[in-house]
């Protein structure tokens, strides 16, 4: 990794001797996970625990005429079979809307369907038994009589008068519409030398987590308290929602989140089957475990990205982009998800298109429609891959039209690095971005001119390689503007409590969560650096609403930037408190002292004065030896939320180098480059691997992943053989470089890095494919770019 620090600051708390900031240090949880001592929800066994299996609808849309569970109830091991009607006694339905998404509507959703099923996979009954196998056996003997209803499956016709309305009470199938106009769009197009217009198609796909969604809910009637063990990204959000719908106070709900096997935004929502599991525990007064199997994961984990977006760009012959226009349509399933809603992705598309560029003329419409398919909601890089593919696809088409190199058109239109702070035509505010520095670095890393020469030479031999570039912006560190202002009780602040234990080690409780991205590591690095102790002296506690401060958790690339700053500020206080007491013990002043290598030292010459364990011993066991009136405080808590900017935007640019076999339609990815700017880098390896992992998920969307529904609303590839996740064999080497523009909102200066890779990967690949196919006069604006799509475009089949 190489990096350029754009805003060198004075020596900060992060630049202390032996700082861990900017260093790759081993993850504190590595040994535990590698030795198989992780604790996932599946590992949890409680006394009297029962297992729930959900009988799921085979139809996309049907009336439930009757459920006969008599035979199943008599099967071995069966404890209870519960219908939606029966469960409604202990849990209320919900509606996934937020007030800041004006006009967004949805229908009440129940934990288990009551009269009607609205997608294939919606639960119609819960079978609770002594084991998962016994429950599956019994599920085969629950007879449900359905009356099939017309299924709304094609988003393009969902709003037609002839199409049936899924929720009669809503009047139509339109969930949300947003129109945004900035500048003089028509005039700009009229003044353009060329206008290019096309439709971009994005396949519906999902985020496949290694560990499926899992819950153990344990209602303790004696305490009137529900303990939920769940792999979730947002424990306090779950606590709030559960309390609200089960008629409890939040203090009666504890959410414990131990190890989580991947989330990607899949595990930040409230799912009906999880709600049913909580409710079943209360109803049956015993612990209930639900672990989704792979088939139900595909049928019920949120899907994303099912968009068709018309895009238009105007350009002058000198390369100046005059205007962008989009008309986006997306189908979200039968309900807007709870509590974050399913309008966010389309809203983000409107926000982000054209974002890296100076053009001020922008018109956008986004429509979100209901369908009888699985629910769609926020998945890694929400909306960004759509916006980036549309924007960068249009920019390349414009460049092709005027015969300009794709790098050159970007150089002429990207917002200048010294233009900040500034805003976008959609109303976004940018504190400090580095598009040009990033692009310059990318060009150097990939040796652009040499690649172009290689491409030209190979073309003569009938080998068709392409280069694709994609600049992007990325929403990170969201403030309350994301959800809170719309009425969702999803915290945008996070808190950290640090305390010195009696032997001079640090216990740190944080409200951010860990799903594998390194929250535990980065927290330990910050605490260790700011305090002056080694990370093996820092124990980080996460994921427990009884034990940690209140906060949002880990999603929307916020853990490091927000939770990390809270850790920094809390540790600064602890450090001050330690130095105060050290000054008393050493008959010195706090200014003359520092902490380094687990000891209080002289600030001047670094000479050790008192070990932290000795200081702790005095404070905890011999306070009688301190002067009168001294009350040491070796615990500190701080919370942080960004206040200046609604979001800390990051930026970056990606490039893809690939080969298209024009006889077979197969695409071989040869190399991928990313330069991104997430501000302060806490742990370079974690950042780089977040980028790489994100790129791989973006490449999955570009080439492989798609939930294939038939016209009756049946998901036809709900398994790992037919749903193609990206695998290492097809992945190129991914080189990552950085430009560093820290945010001044926080002392830490970190912005998010978890989603940048996903934002631009597919756009870079699509542009590279079209670059490779230039000799054939063919452009493709549809992903996934399957061999069938490529061969069809080439007219070979």
């Amino acid at each position: 990794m190489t990096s350029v620090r754009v805003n060198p600051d004075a020596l900060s708390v992060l630049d202390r001797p032996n700082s861990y900031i900017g260093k790759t240090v081993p993850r504190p949880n590595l040994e535990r996970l590698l030795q198989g001592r992780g604790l996932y929800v599946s590992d949890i066994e409680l006394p009297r625990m029962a297992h729930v299996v959900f009988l799921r609808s085979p139809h996309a849309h049907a009336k439930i005429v009757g459920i006969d569970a008599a035979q199943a109830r008599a099967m071995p091991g069966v404890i209870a079979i519960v219908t939606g009607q029966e469960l409604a006694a202990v849990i209320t339905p919900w509606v996934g809307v937020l007030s800041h998404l004006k006009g967004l509507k949805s229908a009440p959703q129940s934990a288990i369907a009551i009269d009607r099923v609205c997608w294939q996979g919606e639960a119609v009954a819960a079978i609770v038994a002594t084991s998962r196998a016994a429950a599956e056996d019994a599920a085969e003997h629950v007879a449900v009589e359905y009356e099939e209803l017309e299924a709304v499956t094609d988003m393009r016709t969902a709003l037609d008068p002839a199409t049936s309305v899924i929720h009669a009470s809503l009047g139509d199938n339109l969930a949300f519409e947003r129109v945004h106009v900035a500048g003089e769009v028509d005039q700009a197009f009229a003044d353009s030398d060329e206008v290019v217009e096309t439709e971009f198609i994005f396949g519906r796909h999902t985020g496949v987590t290694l560990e499926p969604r899992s819950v153990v809910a344990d209602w303790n009637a004696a305490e009137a308290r529900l303990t939920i063990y769940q792999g979730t990204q947002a424990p306090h959000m779950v606590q709030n929602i559960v309390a609200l719908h089960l008629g409890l106070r939040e203090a009666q709900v504890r959410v414990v989140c131990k190890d989580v096997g991947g989330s990607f935004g899949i595990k930040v929502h409230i799912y009906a089957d999880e709600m049913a599991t909580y409710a079943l525990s209360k109803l049956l007064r015993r612990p209930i475990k639900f672990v989704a199997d792979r088939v139900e994961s595909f049928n019920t984990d949120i899907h994303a990205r099912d968009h068709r977006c018309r895009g238009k760009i105007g350009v002058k012959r000198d390369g100046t982009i005059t205007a962008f226009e989009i008309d986006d349509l997306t189908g979200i399933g039968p309900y807007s998800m709870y509590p974050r809603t399913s309008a966010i992705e389309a809203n983000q598309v409107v926000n982000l298109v054209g974002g890296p560029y100076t053009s001020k003329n922008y018109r956008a419409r986004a429509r979100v429609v209901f369908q009888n398919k699985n629910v769609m909601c926020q998945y890694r890089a929400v909306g960004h891959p759509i916006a980036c593919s549309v924007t960068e696809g249009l920019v390349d088409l414009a460049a092709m039209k005027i015969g300009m190199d794709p790098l050159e058109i970007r150089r002429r239109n990207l917002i200048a690095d010294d233009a900040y702070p500034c805003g976008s035509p959609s109303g976004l505010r940018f504190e400090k971005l580095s598009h040009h520095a990033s692009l310059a670095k990318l060009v150097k890393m990939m040796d652009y001119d040499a690649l172009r020469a290689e491409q030209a030479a190979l073309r003569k031999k009938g080998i068709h390689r392409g280069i694709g570039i994609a600049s992007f912006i990325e929403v990170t560190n969201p403030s309350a503007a994301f959800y809170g202002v719309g009425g969702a009780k999803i915290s945008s602040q996070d808190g950290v409590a640090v305390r010195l234990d009696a032997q001079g080690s640090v216990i740190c409780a944080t409200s951010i969560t860990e799903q594998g991205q390194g929250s535990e590591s980065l927290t330990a690095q910050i605490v260790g650096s700011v305090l002056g102790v080694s990370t093996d002296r820092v124990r980080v506690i996460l994921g427990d609403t009884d034990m940690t401060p209140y906060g949002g958790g880990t999603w929307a690339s916020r853990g490091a930037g927000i939770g990390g700053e809270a850790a920094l500020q809390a540790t600064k206080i602890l450090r001050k408190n330690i130095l105060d007491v050290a000054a008393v013990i050493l008959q010195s002043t706090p200014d003359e002292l520092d902490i380094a290598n687990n000891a209080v030292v002289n600030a001047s010459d670094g000479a050790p004065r008192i070990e932290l364990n000795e200081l702790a011993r005095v404070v905890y066991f011999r306070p009688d030896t301190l002067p009168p009136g001294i009350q040491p405080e070796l615990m500190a808590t701080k919370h942080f939320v960004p206040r200046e900017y609604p979001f800390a935007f990051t930026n970056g640019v990606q490039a893809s180098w690939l080969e298209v076999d024009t006889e077979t339609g197969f695409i071989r990815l040869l190399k991928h480059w990313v330069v991104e700017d997430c501000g302060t880098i806490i742990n370079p390896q974690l950042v780089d691997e977040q980028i790489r992992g994100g790129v791989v998920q973006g490449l999955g969307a570009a080439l492989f992943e798609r939930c294939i529904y038939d016209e009756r609303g049946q998901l036809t590839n709900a398994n790992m053989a037919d749903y193609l996740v990206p695998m290492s064999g097809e992945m190129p080497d991914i080189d990552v470089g950085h430009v560093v523009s820290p945010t001044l909102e926080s002392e830490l200066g970190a912005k998010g890095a978890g989603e940048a890779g996903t934002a631009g990967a597919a756009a870079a690949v699509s542009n590279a494919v079209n670059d490779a196919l230039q000799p054939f006069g063919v452009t493709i604006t549809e992903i996934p770019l399957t061999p069938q799509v490529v061969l069809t475009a080439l007219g070979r089949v």
Partner: protein
Amino acid sequence: MKAAAFAYARATSVANALDLLAAHGDRAKVLSGGQSLMPAMNLRLISPELIVDIGELTELRGITVRGDVLVIGALTRHVELLKSPDIAAHAPLLVDAVAHVAHPAIRNRGTLGGSLAHADPASELPACMLALDATIIVRGPGGERRIAAEEFFTGIYETALAPQELLVAIELPVAKKGSVHFFHEFARRHGDYAIAGLAAQASIDGGRFAGLRLGFFAVGDRPLLANAATRLTGVEVSAAVLTEACAALDAELDPQEDQQASPEMRRHLARVLLKRGVAALLGRPELGAGATT
């Protein structure tokens, strides 16, 4: 995703396995490597009453050369095919093919006999059996049957094997001096089932095919030994001859539609495979280049 309850018997000998199969018929399933059977059971696509585990039958293991014949036990695992010096020397096509079969974890468990008996039309080894002119040896209550590979595969997951019979071994003629082979498949990801594939074995004399066996897979309901090969045998292969062979191949195909490819695309890819395969076998790259229609 838990299998329904089933009874389990570990066969102690081939005779014992045959007794169990005779007693239970199609209510029993033979467990070999389990790489297709277990997922199907866990998905409850099938719920056999009895599993007959033949995993301990050492008599079904082993690779031996008897004169001009290579004998491979049914329980030979993919990884053993990949690493065997006898296979490398006498049936190198199998080494190339096995490298395309799924992933190491699956190759460590999956067996040759299991793959052939399962008869997935998109899997590699059945087509190799056609190309290598294999004889499939099965044993049943009535004794041993020897079935030519061409007669063995009868449809999607269907073979000439009766429910009471056990596939015990295969026999291949050892590759003659001067023989060449070609294996390629088009799959979305490495290790996936092919969209179209070709396993070919040939002997070349004076720049012409003296013998050519083309085993196509994933382009029909069973692996196909293409008659189009006769058009290429004993003649000077030109671009025009190859185009004719492509047309002949096309007439033999009856490809299925699935999520990866339309029938038309499978036909197209089969033609590309034929051209590229012939070019590679003859060492004449120019035959494989250029657009294929």
